[in-house]
């Protein structure tokens, strides 16, 4: 007995293209959700006692395609994170990233 199987993959390819677009969109939206969570934690959860709130107000974030950034624009946000020879470090970006990064998959799933 001989069985011939012919698969017309044109439709599969068409839908695969749609899936890829949908996936990319979901990843972008998930990335936006993630970076907002990280920025909120950076702003609200830090180990120093706020005196002026200047650094917290200076926190900005941006998402471009699949790349996201969160940063301080105060001019001294980096010194707070890493310290100097005489001033202690108060890491606040790294713990925020550690806390929220594991939720990226869930955020992407919410947009699928």
């Amino acid at each position: 007995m001989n069985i011939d199987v012919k698969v017309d993959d044109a439709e599969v390819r068409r839908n695969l293209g749609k899936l890829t677009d949908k996936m990319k969109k979901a990843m972008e939206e998930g990335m936006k959700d993630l970076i907002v969570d990280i920025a909120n934690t950076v702003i609200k959860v830090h180990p120093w006692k706020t005196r002026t709130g200047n650094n917290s107000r200076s926190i900005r974030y941006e998402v471009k395609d699949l790349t996201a950034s969160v940063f301080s624009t105060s001019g001294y946000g980096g010194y707070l994170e890493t310290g100097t020879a005489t001033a202690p470090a108060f890491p606040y970006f790294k713990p925020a990233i550690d806390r929220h990064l594991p939720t990226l998959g869930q955020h992407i799933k919410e947009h699928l």
Partner: protein
Amino acid sequence: MVDTNRVIRDYLVSRPALIALVSTHIYAANPLPQNATLPCISFFTRGGTSIPAVPTIVIPSVQFSCWADDPIEAREIYRALYDELNGLYDANVTIDGTIYWIMRAIEEVQGQDLQDTDIPKYWRVLTFYAITIRNF
């Protein structure tokens, strides 16, 4: 729970290449101690992760500063630290009769050459490592 700072320091002070450069001036401190002698290395834990299902394993993220009074020497210390730590796999440290296991050490960010803002004659190379440590 494992005192990860002590495990890391004990490991580093046992490395001849580092001792040759900084003697035993390796400080688990934030910021640098006031009486610190240059050249030296200071480090502290800035965060990291743990594994809920395996509480004996922790993965601190550690900030290292390689200090010297000139940038070339600071980078030389950084390079020695890199050679000792990056890619480290399966190293034992015994403290008070207990064996601790550094399972893995991976550099998170390549060293940054920085001049200190508070003491301009102080130079440092700043780097970060994720270090997986387990006690038996």
